[in-house]
């Protein structure tokens, strides 16, 4: 990887900016273009940039968990968001429940789950190619 001081120094800020953008895109997705799929991809781009600048081992430290673990958490979250319908209201799995009068409901954790799976998926694929550590 090219070793550039500017790249190295800016990596952290670009990562956080990218993550902030990705979360913004994730949350606005229900009304404007965006959502978990796109948000997850943008988040992954942030990490990829970080890995390019600092090496994937550093990125894995920032991630704390293995990308696959993040993906697993996402899948669990998405599945769990479908359970209230089944268990509390005797409706089919993933019939999203809403708080009366507010646009807040189980669709939000579901989309966050999608976000995490896409993020984990993309990083699990890309990170091994970005540096010497094949983790």
């Amino acid at each position, binding site marked *: 990887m090219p070793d550039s001081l500017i790249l190295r120094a800016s990596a952290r800020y670009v990562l956080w900016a990218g993550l902030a953008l990705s979360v913004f895109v994730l949350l606005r*997705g*229900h009304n404007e273009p*965006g959502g978990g799929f796109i948000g997850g991809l943008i988040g992954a*781009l942030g990490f990829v940039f970080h890995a*390019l600048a600092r090496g994937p081992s550093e990125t894995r430290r920032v991630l704390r968990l293995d990308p696959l673990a993040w993906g697993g958490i996402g*899948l669990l979250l998405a599945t769990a968001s479908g359970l209230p319908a089944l268990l509390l209201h005797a409706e089919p799995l*993933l019939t999203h429940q809403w708080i009366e009068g507010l646009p807040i409901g189980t669709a939000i954790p579901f989309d966050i789950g999608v976000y995490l799976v*896409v993020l984990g998926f993309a990083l699990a694929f890309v990170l091994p190619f970005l540096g010497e550590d094949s983790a």
Partner: protein
Amino acid sequence: MVLAIAPGPCDHRPMLALPAIPLLALTCVPVSAWAVRRAPRTAPWLAVLPAALFLLVLTLPDGAGFRLAWIPSLGVEISFHLDGLSRLFALLITGIGAGVYLYAASYLAGHAQLHRFLATLTLFMAAMLGAVLADDLLLLFVFWELTSLASFLLIGFDAHRAEARRAAQQGLMVTVAGGLAMLAGVLLLGRAAGSFSISEILAQGDALAGDPLAPWIVVLIAIGCFAKSAQWPLHFWLPNAMAAPTPVSAYLHSATMVKLGVYLLARLNPAFQDMALWQGLLTGAGAATMLAGAVLALRERDLKRKLAWSTVVALGTLVMLIGIQDPLATTAAIVFLLVHALYKASLFLIAGIVDKKAGTRDAMQLRGLGRRMPLTAAAALLAGLSMAGAPGFIGALAKDLLFTVHVGLPGLLPGIALVVNAAMVVVAGVVAARPFMGAPMRTEQTAKDPPVAMLVAPLVLGGLGLLLGMAPQLVAATIIEPAAAAMLGRPTGIALAQKQGGMLVLTMSLGALALGLLMFLGWRRIQPTLAGQGWLDAYGPDAGYGRAMRGLAVGATALTRRVQGGSLRRYLAASLVLVFGGAGLLLAARGGLALPAPGLWATPAQLALATVIAAGALAACRIRALFGQVMAAGLVGFGVGILFLTLGAADLAFTQFTVEILAIVLLVAILARLPFHALDARGAGERRRDALLAIGVGATATAILLAVLSVPFDPAIQGWMGQAAVPEAKGRNVVNVVIVDFRALDTLGEIAVLLIAALAATVLLRRAGKPA
């Protein structure tokens, strides 16, 4: 899911206690693992679970039922039903289970994996209980397969032994393959009967036998039951299952697993008993199994394997009795089932004790243990006498019933019964008497009686054989007759306490006993002759199984070597030709080639974008430098993204851009890391062929897209989604609403696939990093 506890057609009392039986056992699986792991001395106390369930089953009223909708659209229910037949089986499973738990805790005391063993045993018991109590055929099937899985784990418990692994795999292959046939039979049965409920199916009487599907149903279900209940020629897995720890063998052979096939045949008997096919299949397979098992039992020297072959004989006898349509045969089947469960469990447990104390299971070597192990010898004697059908034991009652049925049968069957029963006398003698008789053998350690915990079950079970033989009225009206009536579909009208049969039967009984004694005395000489018949092993089904499995491995290796040549370009070409060639041919053959209506043709801006995309694609083909190719491909990707934008698909464009960036970064990173020396080693001919392939794929894709666009578009769905998005899903972005709400289940499936793909890729990438 709707919680509906409604009475079924035959049950009057909805009982929550009924589903609680398998549920409680299932709950105890993790609990037992946890408790025994933390404190191994709690292990014997686990026997309280089956003992409590035994009492529960005993007290529940006949006809108790429970129904809960599971998959209402398919008519599948979580439903349980208790009648005489299921009660008898549940009592055997829990009663013998209690003894087995107590024995196992002592037998495997100090074993590092005791907790795993007991948890698996509990899972197995739960599955068995679920299977015999289930009233829904598909629920029964689920539990049925669960018993196969649990027994796989139990047989392969000593996983470090190759023999145990092979036996576990073999048992699984045979029973699950049979289970597959059974599933097909069950589905057909549900279709023919219009219901998966066993009580509803049985309520139709013998009407089902006239259904055109009936022969298929009978054959398929029989295959499943024969595989499970080790009927010839699928009997070979059972003796190999002896690789399991002894308590498992005792449990598998007496009350569970192999009896499940017998249970289902008995369960469905009322519906099919008048079919000649049913009778022929069952009596034929049963008689063949009896005979094969008897021969193989006689030539065996290993105590456990000898008992295993005698189980094959017993299973053949049971299946044959189910196939004979005579109330007497029905009663005989039920009595023999009980008799066999009692003595077989006891004898297996004793064989385990002998193995442990004397250090061998070779019947030829075992001698004179009786004086040092008096209690074990007493238990063995009780069980062995019942097995041999000695007067006074319940085994004699079963044998009388058996012969009474047989004297009325045509052809060789009475003779077969006589010889087979004599062989059982020999097995009883060799396993239960011979090791304890005569001058003491030399053993490495002093052989002595085991702890009481290991003797309780053999002594109680053996004692029951004598008690019930003296006083059959204890169970005649409460256990035997209700079970037989359920199997026959009506009361049998047979009073058990009476002496069955006349002089002929008495002669046969005594004849079998005498012949058996004679053969027992000469067994030392008979056995080597029989064991010398090597062709029995060389051409037996076990050897056939081995050959089939080896053939499978060889064939798979050859196929893999052929198909997986290692050339990425070849794989790609093969995949493309297959997918696009197939799709293109299908499209052409079905006359799907069409041009869309002119209104869909592009605007000037889109045409310009299309030109850019085409130029990028061409450039990617022409540029020789890899980096340049990546950039050109990127041009195509971004061009498509902008095209999406001009069509108002913002989400799609957004995704396209991010994916494109990721792909370029990834490609560049790979190119930077990997040394590409020969950029393109293809010859001119290969290049032409690849170009043709690429053009063909592109043309096919275009044709498909044009065909899709030419189908009139129904705006109703789009309109509905647009209208419903805000009120139903609180979102204005219809694309996202579709993804996370309207089609959330699809999305869940997709992200699951994504994660699985990432898992597989991670494994491959990790392996690629390491030297092979």
